[in-house]
């Protein structure tokens, strides 16, 4: 309803709607620029830290491994951390882009389907009731929480006749998130030990290891493939439900694909790195600002831009309080929020 009214009343001028880049050539050019920035940030992420490593040594450490201290730091710590950052960044950005396109709500983030609330709640159960303490065993709790919660939210959102509409999915996510959050907080408050563990569960890339990364990799891969496959039907959905059906896009199938992809991507990130906000909310806005409303371009840019934001936040977290570190989950809001506020102060927020 609201979307239809928007289209009728304030249809933006042609240039405004198209974003900053008007032709596919310019979009391709900007994508190359973004990829260049991405490579630079990756090298920085490997080189910068409590011990700075010069660029030449970074290349040597990556391609001609010799058993020096610096090479060991690169291969054992910085490289897996950077790989984790890239995977999580892509997952967060993609799930944000998908959920914003599906709900056509610029404020939607992956947390809106209850993914983070569910992961947190199951973590509380795992620590408080079953006494697990190591992060590796808790990955499965967090992941199961994300999946179960999304299923419940989808069930409530699609109860009664007809398919789940985006508005009802959103409201159901808010409601379930509130219930789980309330009960989870209550449980932590009657048990100081659980409280202490949960207090430290802040989104972080600081303790990466390859076995954990390999554990989530299958879910991540399926999620990314589904996300890319959903780009075209989402373009049709953006025209309105009736028109999308008339163009031959299956609404129900698109929604199911998107919900599954978001759950896999956001769930695996929450499981391995904890709750990281703002990347999923912000990056799709920036991508839309550059390329306009075509989901295929938005998704391509998101895949490059989201890891840049996450890695930059991680680097800032490493050097802001040397020799200590700030968790990336704390830094993303400080890096991202000013950009979001600037975007909101533009004359027209990038419409969906």
């Amino acid at each position, binding site marked *: 309803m609201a979307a239809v009214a928007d289209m009728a009343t304030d249809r933006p001028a042609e240039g405004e709607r198209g974003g900053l880049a008007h032709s596919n050539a310019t979009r391709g050019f900007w994508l190359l620029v973004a990829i260049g920035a991405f490579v630079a940030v990756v090298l920085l992420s490997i080189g910068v830290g409590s011990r700075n490593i010069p660029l030449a040594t970074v290349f040597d450490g990556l391609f001609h491994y010799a058993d020096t201290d610096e090479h060991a730091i690169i291969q054992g710590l910085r490289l897996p951390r950077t790989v984790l950052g890239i995977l999580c960044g892509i997952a967060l950005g993609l799930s944000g882009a998908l959920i914003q396109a599906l709900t056509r709500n610029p404020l939607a983030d992956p947390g809106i389907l209850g993914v983070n609330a569910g992961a947190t709640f199951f973590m509380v159960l795992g620590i408080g009731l079953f006494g697990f303490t190591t992060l590796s065993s808790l990955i499965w709790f967090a992941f199961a929480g994300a999946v179960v919660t999304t299923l419940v939210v989808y069930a409530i959102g699609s109860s009664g*006749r007809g398919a789940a509409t985006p508005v009802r999915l959103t409201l159901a996510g808010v409601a379930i998130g509130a219930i789980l959050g309330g009960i989870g907080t209550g449980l932590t408050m009657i048990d100081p030990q659980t409280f202490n563990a949960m207090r430290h569960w802040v989104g972080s890339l600081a303790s990466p290891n390859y076995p954990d990364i390999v554990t989530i990799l299958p879910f991540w891969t399926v999620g990314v493939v589904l996300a890319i496959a959903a780009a075209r039907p989402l373009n049709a959905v953006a025209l309105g439900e009736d028109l999308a059906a008339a163009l031959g896009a299956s609404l129900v199938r698109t929604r199911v694909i998107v919900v599954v992809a978001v759950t896999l991507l956001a769930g695996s990130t929450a499981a391995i790195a904890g709750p990281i906000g703002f990347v999923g909310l912000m990056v799709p806005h920036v991508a839309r600002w550059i390329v306009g409303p075509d989901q295929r371009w938005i998704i391509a840019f998101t895949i490059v831009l989201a890891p840049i934001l996450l890695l930059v936040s991680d680097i800032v977290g490493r050097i802001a309080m040397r020799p200590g570190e700030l968790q990336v989950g704390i830094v993303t809001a400080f890096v991202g929020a000013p950009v979001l506020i600037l975007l909101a102060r533009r004359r027209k927020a990038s419409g969906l």
Partner: protein
Amino acid sequence: MTIAHTPAVDFGRAVRIVRIAGGRVAERIDLRTAAVCLIVLAFTAVVAVWTLMTGDFPVTPGEVLQALFGEASRRVEMVVVEWRLPRVLLAVVLGAALGMSGAIFQSVTRNPLGSPDVIGFEAGAYTGALCVIILWHGGYYEVATGALAGGILTAVVVYFLAYRQGVQGFRLIVVGIGVGAMLTALNTYLMLKAQLQVAMTAAIWGAGTLNGVGFDKLVPASIAIAGLMLVAVFLARPMRQLEMGDDAAGALGIRPERARLALIFLGIGFTATATAAAGPISFVALAAPQIARRLARSPGVALVPSACLGALLLAVADLAGQRTFAPTQLPVGVVTVSIGGLYFAWLLIREARRK
């Protein structure tokens, strides 16, 4: 045999007009809304008496009434009037304040998800309180002052960041979310740096709690809220007119930007008082106006029914928080979130069935 007669014409809602002082003051009173308010208030009274009865020292309903009228034994009177009464009264008063502030923000942002959170107030208040608790180890009044200062400062910053030739609802929401996210990150950082015991104290305050409330805390909060309600009487009508859109409201003789600013200040005043007295209690402001709207079947959110439902919600939540895990007392804010969320989910399912 008579045939059930349904009128062919819909005469609208049953309304009585009350005139005071020879018609100089007149008010239209919607009968269904009035009935809903009275019933909700009656429920609130029942819950209040129930709360006065229960606890480690059980009291009969008769003894409660005797104690309230000053005719019970010294011991019963101390338990009921001095220990339990201020807490119940504060729950009712703060619930009403939160309900009204929710109604104001939902009306101003024209969004059923609008609440004082939107303008970043509660995140800012939490930051202020955390600074006082963790950095200065302040007591009740210092924490309340810190929360007020943090909340109001944040709200002012959000308002000015969102101001560009007037404040538009959508931009206010986005800016509020951005500022709120930064403050939430800061709060997480402060919690990580604190010692466990201090952090738990801070977290309980942060959830909103009525534990350990006495008359000394009830009286200032009640006076502040009574004053704000007096202001609300004069702003209720501009709020209705603003809901019709800025142009229509301007044509009806009010200045939209000024009225909106006054309403936002009033809403913040209510929330600020409640936050200073008991911490940031969430979800009452969000849920009360929506529940009231559905019970009264009114077209928009309204102040008085929202206040009544807020009072009932907070009274019920506090009773549940005291008794569920007794003797451990849950912060009331934790209970309001769970109850509010359950209600929300139930409402969604029910609406789906009906369609």
